[in-house]
């Protein structure tokens, strides 16, 4: 999917006008190529595919984690899930996923651009900014829970001290702010890796291009859009795509911070599946949620592939 756009990456830069060779290369036989992928696929089948299929099958059964045995119920679980708060969860999942993909992207990109200007102490900052990424995941959750706490959190203390708010807010307990708080915490944990990826991408932009554009009278902003951004298309696409996928199934931070509350306003598919299976012990219903989740994602993938193929043809 990125290949097409990415191909113009470095190799392309060496000689911008060089025609791409699209003829298939054959350095070895197909059998060897397939053998190389086997260890990876073996893992994927054992650890993802098989458990996934067996979990999705439970969507059609009444099955509990604690009561042995199961009973076929057809589409009953799916119906129950759809009639319940499915669409609310669907919406919230997208809000969370988009928010925690785009905001860390902006922060990470901003930092990458800043560090790429050859700032004094660039290396030092680059190292320091990695710290949030390396604090063990659950600690990130607890740290933000601690910061946002309504009754003794430092967020309230700081904002009140600065006169920004008049009274303490229950950031994690008010429907209006809970999702934002969760996204902030997630942003904190994931901007560093985006920064690293984008910084690496920025360093592949040949300075000649900037100089040429500057000579043509392009300002900083114009050069960003006409030189930097097109050059980074591949890496930007990859970073956004991966982050989107990860956030779609992100669990830890939401689970610890709000547990899906208040009043279900931060519940996403991932937390909902976990709650249903491990708190409610209802494997059938968790399977049904998972099945619907997959259908949605498959639709997204189809749209994405179509879209990226069209881009490639152009």
């Amino acid at each position, binding site marked *: 999917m990125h290949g097409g756009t990415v191909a113009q990456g470095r*190799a392309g830069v060496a000689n911008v006008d060089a025609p791409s060779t699209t003829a298939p290369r054959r350095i070895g036989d197909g059998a060897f190529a397939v053998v190389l992928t086997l260890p990876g696929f073996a893992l994927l089948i054992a650890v993802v595919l098989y458990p996934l299929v067996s*979990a999705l099958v439970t969507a059609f059964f009444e099955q509990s984690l604690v009561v042995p045995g199961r009973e076929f119920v057809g589409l009953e679980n799916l119906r129950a899930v759809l009639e319940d708060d499915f669409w609310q969860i669907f919406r919230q999942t997208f809000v969370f996923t988009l928010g925690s993909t785009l905001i860390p992207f902006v922060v990470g990109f901003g930092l990458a651009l800043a560090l790429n200007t050859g700032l004094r102490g660039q290396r030092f900052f680059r190292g320091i900014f990695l710290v949030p990424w390396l604090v063990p995941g659950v600690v990130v959750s607890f740290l933000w829970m601690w910061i946002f706490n309504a009754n003794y959190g430092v967020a309230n203390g700081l904002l009140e001290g600065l006169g920004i708010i008049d009274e303490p807010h229950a950031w994690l307990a008010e429907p209006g702010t809970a999702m934002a708080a969760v996204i902030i915490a997630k942003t904190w944990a994931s901007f560093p890796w985006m920064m690293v990826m984008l910084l690496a991408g920025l360093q592949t932009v040949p300075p000649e291009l900037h100089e040429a554009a500057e000579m043509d009278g392009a300002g900083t902003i114009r050069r960003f859009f006409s030189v930097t951004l097109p050059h980074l298309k591949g890496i930007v696409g990859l970073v956004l795509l991966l982050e989107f996928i990860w956030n779609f199934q992100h669990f830890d931070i939401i689970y610890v911070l709000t547990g899906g509350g208040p009043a279900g306003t931060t519940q996403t598919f991932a937390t909902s599946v976990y709650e249903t299976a491990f708190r409610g012990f209802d494997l059938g219903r968790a399977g049904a*949620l998972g099945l619907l989740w997959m259908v949605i994602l498959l639709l997204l993938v189809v749209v994405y592939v179509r879209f990226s193929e069209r881009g490639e043809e152009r």
Partner: protein
Amino acid sequence: MSTVTSTRPADSVTTDPAPANRRRRRSPRARRGPRVSAWVAVVVFGAFALLPVYWLLATSLSPQDQVFSYPPSIFPSDITFEHYADLADNPDLFRYLVNSVVVSVVTAVLSVLVSAYMGYSFSKFRYRGRRSLMYLVLSSQMFPQALLLVTLYAVFSAYGLLNSYAALILSFTTFTLPLCVWMLKGFFDTIPDELIESARVDGASRLRIIHSIVMPLSAPGLVAAGLFAFVRGWNDFIFALTLAGPDKQTLPPGLVNTYVGEAQTAWPQLMAASLVVSLPVVIGFIVLQRYLVGGLTAGAVKG
């Protein structure tokens, strides 16, 4: 997909273009405007990045009876190291740290190896269904992992792999495959086919080509991919909790287990422990970060 045949000499692949880049930027013509906005960005985002770390530190230094005061004292007046001293009484923490390091390192190595084979196959061979397979690998990241737990538990149980490092390492390796495969494929794309062809002509076996030509050439990319895989293993909570068993428990569940109890959360102790156990990894990454950025720059970021 990437179909550009690179004709650049192989040695340039591993050259970090950053120094050249930076030198140019520091030319006298360096503009003041961007420099100022760069500093503004670093300070603003830097505050966002570092204030929570500061608060982690401040909390870990507060006496137990002051951590819940409000308004919180931004600069703790009484500093105590007792929570750090307490860590020494908890030998389990060290065990969790060792487990975490073992699991994350082995995950990183295994993941790089498996992904390198797969990425090489996707990069240098053309066969039917290749593209679909690549998407399949990528989409395996999208599934609800919480849903996998119940069956995965049974699978590992059946093979007697529960309560061992193996269950965790195999799971994490699988979860990091998509990112690593895509990163490494991008990297391999920049290795000229001619190089591989000529090695074949010289009589090198196909596996030997991978191990002694392709992989060394891609070393920075392998390190970068490995570091990402490391972090995945380092951060996971729910799989580690479920699959590792008491002896092989890693830090995230270990920390929760130790400090988040039935009756209270031991905030300052939790913070102190988190800082101490993160320290070696942070230092390691600061040392290795030039590979991280350099390795990515040299090709891996091409996706």
